[in-house]
Every structure is written in structure tokens, then in C-alpha cells.
């Protein structure tokens, strides 16, 4: 019960803390808000093409029966850990792309609902890490740093550990 309340309290209390801080600092609060909200709008517009591309691909993958085949192929390995087979596609997509895993999360919510066991586990997996390959390619690509092999290796092990932890907790 307490743990559930921390989650519910977090967002409103964060807003209030920030606003109290802002009133003290005497900035123009509303101007800042409008400026930031505009940036948020631009951000939404900029991710729209990727979301359309990926959600359409995931839907096609699902409707054509390809998703089922992948799940069936991988299920024997994952069922040993009692890992729900519905989350397998998310597990594959998560390290590769954030938008891609959001597309899969969307399809999981659509089929099983966000408050089901599968929905909750998927929410946790999807919210608790960033796309590993994307981060490495953005940051290391920007400065032409090539020794990324061990970083990816460590990151994937950490990802597996975090998923096992989530599974254990749910």
C-alpha cells in the first residue's frame, strides 16, 4: 500500500516542489512554462514520423502472424524462468530502440491492458532502461569512440539482471 502511494504522490509533489522553488527564485514562471511546453510540442512533432513507422511495422508484424512464430520459437527458453511469453518481443526490442519498444508496449496494452500482470511487467521493463544500442551509437558516434564492445556487453548483462529483478518483484 505504501509503495503504491509513493508512485501516486511523486508527480504532484514534484510539481509543487518545483513551483515553490520557482516562486522563491522570482523568475517569470508562466513564460518559462510556455517556453518549455512549446519545446515539448516540437518534441512530439519530431517523434511522430518514427512512431508512425514503428507502430505500423509492429502492427503488421502482429497481424501477419510473424509475432506469434517468434514467441513460439523463443518461449521454451523463457518459460523456464516463468517469464510471460507476451513480453518476449518487448525484451528483444528494448535494447535496440525506444520508439520501437513503445510501439510494442502499445500493442501489449491493447491486447492485455495496462493493469494486468503482463501490462505491469512490460511497463516496468520499458520504463527502467534506455535503448542500449541507441545510447552507444549516439554518444560514441558523436565523438568517434570505437571501443564500445565491452560497454555493450556490460549493458546487456545489466539489462538482463534488471529484467530478472522486475520479474522477481512483479
Amino acid at each position, binding site marked *: 500500500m505504501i509503495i503504491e502511494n509513493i508512485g501516486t504522490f511523486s508527480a504532484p509533489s514534484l510539481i509543487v516542489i518545483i513551483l515553490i522553488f520557482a516562486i522563491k527564485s522570482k523568475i517569470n514562471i508562466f513564460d518559462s512554462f510556455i517556453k518549455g511546453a512549446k519545446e515539448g510540442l516540437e518534441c512530439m512533432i519530431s*517523434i511522430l514520423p518514427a512512431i508512425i*513507422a514503428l507502430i505500423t511495422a509492429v502492427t503488421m508484424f502482429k*497481424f501477419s502472424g510473424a509475432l506469434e512464430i517468434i514467441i513460439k520459437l523463443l518461449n521454451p527458453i523463457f518459460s523456464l524462468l516463468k517469464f510471460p511469453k507476451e513480453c518476449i518481443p518487448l525484451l528483444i526490442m528494448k535494447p535496440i530502440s525506444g520508439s520501437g519498444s513503445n*510501439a510494442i508496449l502499445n500493442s501489449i496494452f491493447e491486447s492485455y491492458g495496462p493493469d494486468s500482470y503482463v501490462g505491469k511487467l512490460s511497463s516496468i521493463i520499458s520504463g527502467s*532502461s534506455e535503448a542500449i544500442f541507441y545510447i552507444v551509437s549516439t554518444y560514441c558516434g558523436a565523438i568517434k569512440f570505437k571501443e564500445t564492445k565491452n560497454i555493450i*556487453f556490460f549493458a546487456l548483462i545489466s539489462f538482463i*539482471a534488471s529484467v530478472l529483478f522486475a520479474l522477481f*518483484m512483479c
Partner: protein
Amino acid sequence: MIGKVWAIMIASSFFCAVINNKMNELGNAILEGTDQAINIILMTSGAIIFWSGIMKIAQDSGFTGAISKLLFPILRVLFPNCAKKWNILNPICINFVSNIMGLSNAATPSGIKAMQEMKKENLLKTNAAVFLIMNMSCIQIAPTFLVALRKSFGSNTPYEILPKMWATSIVFLLTGILLIKIFKNEKIDKIA
């Protein structure tokens, strides 16, 4: 990489549809997928735009700056050979706090800046891994998109998963840092 995955997904859907005789469904999927994407953007953008506004207030009022100061002792442990090198530590701080606050617009430029400074001082080898693991662990106080998506599918308690999610992020971060500290660079090349 995502480009290839995307193309392979669509191509393999086509072949599966041929085998399963589901070409009609595949055609519908194109329409339904695009439709859903627009719906998701519409359903979640209100929350995201609102939070971007709030987070801008946090930035402008110096709230993020104040939080960064609290982080310095932790950074001293994580990046021991960067002590007092503010040109590296400052962007790392901004990057980490921006990530926690969900300001990905601010996180990426400062993250790249931190990587550049590390490169200049020849400290990439030991520190890049820790820094990137910090970025990947994605500890977020208010993961707006996730919460808004849960809400849009009718969740009664969209925020409920947050504490478990934070704990999972921390497990990711600690496992990564532990691995890096245990295997110093020379040994890793043999394993990976």
C-alpha cells in the same frame, strides 16, 4: 540499426502473411497501425507538453542546478579520476539530472559534451562505460510517456508501477557499475 530491424520486420510480415494466407489482415494492419500511432501521439502529447513546461520552470528557476550540487559526492565515487575536473563533471551532472527529470532535449547535448571533454583529457577508457551505463539506466522521476500511455489504455493507477520501475533502474545501474569496477578494461577484451 533500427532501420534494418524495421525493414526486416515489414518484409518478414509480408512473407508470413503469404504463408498464413493473411494478406487482407496485413493490408488492414497498415491502416490500423498508422491510425494507432496518431492516436497515441494525441493521447499522450497533452501530458508530455505539460511536463515539458514544468521541467522548463525547474531549469529556469535553478532547481535542476540545485539538485546537481547534491550529486557531486556521488559522482566523486563513480568517476574517481575526474576529481575537480569541472569541465567533465559539470556536463555529466547536467546530463544525469536532465535524464532524471525527463528532459531528453537537454540530456543529449550535455552528454555529448561530457564525452568530448573526457576524450580531450584521455579519460574515456575508464569513464565512458560508467557514464553510458548511467544514461542507459534511465532513472526518471516522472516518465511522462509511459504514464500517459497507461492512462490512455484505461489504467486506474497509471503511477502505481513507478517505485518498482525506479528499483529496477537502480538494479540496472548498480549491476553495470559493479561489472565495470570488477572487470578492469584489460580483462574484458578476453570475455567479450
